[in-house]
């Protein structure tokens, strides 16, 4: 079976090369028959990578330990769920996942009915094929998931098992969503390059790829969030976000991708920022490769990296190739990308989009620079200078807060020119209310956190402007149509899905920001050793240690503490932090216990115990507003789906709407 999988990949490479050549020749000679054959090749690659993926899944499920990859990442007793997710637990498998997603995307783009008349499509397919071939080559030549254990060695009875830290639902969702996002940006990139190649650089490539961009962006957002959620519950990963190089690697393209999907709106509406948009999509695509490179090269100290498997050079080479070719095309065609319009006012929607873009790209640049600084300083000065977590917080904190502020202001400013009256009209009430909230928090909450209160002020201001916008829309509609409140709300939303989907996404982002601000500024923490019967107090909580217990869960032994939790003197339930002793792993794994409400998470870690459980050490956090991070994430997804769902209401509204 494994050999068939490998063979599928080899054939896919061959077909890829043929298809690419066929596309190029058919474009030059205008040979429709050859073009059809090239398209067939794309479909074949889609099928072959699908077959290879299913073979890998089959091997993982049946536990064929003669395959190295299966041996290294699974064991007989691993739950089905995690046998499946072992697909992308290692380097080779994750490359197959990438390749598979890309091949399917390529097939969809190539065969889409919508694009039948678009003469750019053969170019797009050819560009995507180059990326396909690269990934397939890496797998076949460097790291194949189908490699067998050396011949002459007896097939092991059982595998090494999946590391306990990877046995988390995050392992299932985080890599898949992240890759769907990463790979998704290859499509708008390919369209942009095709536009440059064909010298047809009007905004059709932007219109065609809008859904791809937004959905890729949504998956990248989700990928980051699932990563955060996972890191939040794993001890030793430094909380939901630690500015680790690998975390940054997926955050930087998110920032530039966010900038891109905003600035293309300016091009759609006003025919401006064309060079900027081209540059942004090129940068975003290269950053997705950079992220993949960083995770696999071992050049930076990271807690999440794969081992250095010699793949770094491959990715570096491909990244440089993509950068050189894209930049050459951009510079060569730059006179085609003339602006259609000029900025007419310094307070206008265009200019606020520009500010948003500069801030996002600024944050991306600062994060990128901080991440790769050890490499640069080593090259220049011979020492690796690193920056620590406070650097990223101090630099990105204000920038992202400003971005959020612009997010509130931007959608309410009219295109072209905004009047002072119009501004006062839109912002008066949100401003008054949010200042009251900010001042109140500053005075009322312990610690008198100035930055925390200020950040809250800004975030609530923006949230209120968004809510006000919904309210006003409904009011205007009701006045005109005399519909009921809910009907008016529903119709308002569904008739302008792009706009209100966007507002919904903004709302999600605000909620995520509130969680970040809240847990950052108002987190409390205590680590304490207690004996049986003793109580740990933190904030309004009192948690009592009543000794340790043990239970069996499948093959694993679980040691846990069942601790009653009191809040303000009332019993509000029990919390059970655990240590799990895996049969296949030397060290126990810590399962944190979280008692979450909308206000805060009580987060308890059973760190260690002595005297056969008579004393134990616990680490307890109170993390305010954490659940809003996940709620915000789902609102973001809903908003995205709502905005891009095909059909009525998803078109761009008339230009220059006031």
């Amino acid at each position, binding site marked *: 079976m494994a050999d068939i999988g490998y063979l599928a990949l080899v054939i896919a490479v061959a077909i890829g090369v043929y298809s690419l050549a066929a596309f190029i020749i058919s474009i030059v000679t205008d040979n429709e028959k050859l073009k059809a054959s090239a398209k067939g090749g794309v479909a074949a690659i889609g099928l072959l990578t699908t077959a290879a993926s299913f073979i890998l899944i089959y091997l993982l499920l049946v536990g064929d*330990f003669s395959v190295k990859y299966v*041996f*290294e990442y699974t064991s007989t007793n691993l739950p089905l769920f995690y046998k499946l997710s072992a697909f992308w637990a*290692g380097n080779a498998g994750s490359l197959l996942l990438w390749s598979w997603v890309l091949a399917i995307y390529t097939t969809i783009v190539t065969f889409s009915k919508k694009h039948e008349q678009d003469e750019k499509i053969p170019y797009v397919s050819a560009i995507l094929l180059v990326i396909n071939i690269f990934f397939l080559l890496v797998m076949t030549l460097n790291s194949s998931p189908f490699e067998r*254990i*050396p011949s002459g*060695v*007896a097939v*092991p009875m*059982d595998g*090494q098992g999946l*590391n*306990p*830290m990877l046995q988390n639902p995050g392992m299932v969702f985080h890599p898949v969503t992240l890759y769907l996002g990463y790979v998704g940006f290859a499509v708008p990139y390919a369209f942009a390059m095709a536009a440059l190649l064909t010298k047809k650089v009007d905004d059709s490539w932007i219109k065609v790829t809008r859904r791809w961009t937004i959905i890729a962006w949504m998956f990248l957002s989700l990928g980051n969030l699932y990563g955060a959620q996972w890191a939040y519950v*794993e*001890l*030793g*990963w430094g909380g939901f976000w*630690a500015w*680790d190089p690998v975390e940054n690697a997926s955050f930087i393209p998110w920032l530039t991708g966010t900038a891109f999907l905003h600035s293309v709106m300016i091009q759609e509406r006003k025919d401006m920022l064309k060079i900027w948009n081209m540059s942004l999509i090129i940068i975003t695509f290269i950053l997705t490769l950079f992220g993949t490179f960083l995770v696999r090269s071992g050049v930076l*100290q*990271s*807690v*999440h*990296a*794969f*081992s250095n498997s010699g793949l770094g050079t491959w990715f570096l080479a491909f990244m440089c190739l993509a950068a050189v070719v894209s930049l050459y095309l951009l510079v060569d065609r730059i006179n085609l990308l003339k602006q259609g319009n000029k*900025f*007419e*006012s*310094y307070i206008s929607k265009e*200019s606020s989009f*520009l500010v948003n873009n500069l*801030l996002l790209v*600024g*944050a991306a*640049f*600062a994060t990128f620079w901080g991440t790769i600084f*050890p490499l640069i300083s080593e090259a220049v000065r011979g*020492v*690796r*200078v*690193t*920056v*620590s*977590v*406070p*650097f990223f917080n*101090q*630099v990105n904190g204000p920038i992202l807060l400003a971005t959020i502020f612009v997010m509130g202001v931007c959608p309410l400013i009219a295109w072209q020119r905004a009047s002072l009256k119009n501004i006062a009209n839109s912002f008066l009430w949100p401003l008054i209310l949010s200042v009251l909230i900010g001042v109140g928090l500053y005075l009322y909450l312990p610690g008198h956190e100035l930055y925390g209160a200020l950040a809250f002020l800004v975030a609530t201001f923006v949230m209120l402007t968004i809510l006000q916008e919904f309210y006003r829309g409904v009011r205007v509609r009701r006045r005109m149509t005399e519909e009921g409140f809910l009907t008016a709300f529903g119709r308002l939303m569904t008739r302008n899905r792009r706009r209100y989907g966007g507002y919904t996404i903004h709302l999600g982002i605000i909620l995520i920001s509130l969680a970040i601000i809240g847990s950052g500024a108002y987190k409390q923490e205590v*680590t*304490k*050793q207690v004996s049986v019967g003793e109580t740990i107090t933190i904030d309004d909580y009192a948690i009592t240690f009543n000794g340790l217990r043990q239970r069996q869960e499948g093959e694993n032994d679980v040691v846990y503490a069942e601790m009653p939790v009191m809040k303000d003197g009332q019993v509000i339930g029990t919390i059970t932090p655990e240590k799990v002793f895996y049969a296949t792993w030397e060290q126990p794994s810590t399962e944190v216990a979280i008692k979450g409400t909308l206000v805060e998470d009580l987060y308890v*870690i059973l*760190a*260690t115990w*002595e005297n056969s459980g008579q004393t*134990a*050490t616990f*680490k307890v956090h109170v993390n305010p507003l954490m659940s809003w991070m996940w709620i915000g994430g789902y609102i973001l997804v809903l908003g995205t789906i709502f905005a891009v769902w095909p059909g009525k209401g998803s078109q761009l509204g008339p230009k220059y709407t006031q």
Partner: protein
Amino acid sequence: MNQTTKIFIGVLIIIAAVGYLMFTGFSSFSGYEVGISELLTGQKDYNDEYLLVPGKLIGDSVNFNGDKVELVFTLTDIKGEGYQLPVVYNDVKPDNFDDGADVILEGYYDKEDNLFKAEKVTTKCPSKYEGVEEGAETPPQGEN
């Protein structure tokens, strides 16, 4: 002043602000990444410098004092030259903290006491372990 100039000035202000943030951030929060051998035997004095030090954990050296919430352990250098760095960390033991684990320390080194005071200890994500050492080339027979 025409609109383009105003926009241009606005752009410059934003770029300057980001630059300023980065500059001050760098001067306050940068440190050095050094190997253990360099730290112990190198010429440079790293006292009072914020350091990032990767190393491998010596499993037997780990000792946790719950009373003081103090984790004491020793790392060896990654190249296997035998240099050892004693570390103290006032927090609980991270997961995956077993013998030979790749650990990244952040904190300060006190040369006089020969003690690294860690402010942050992270263990590498397990996918890093793939094919690195035992088992990858010659799988053990039967159960293990």
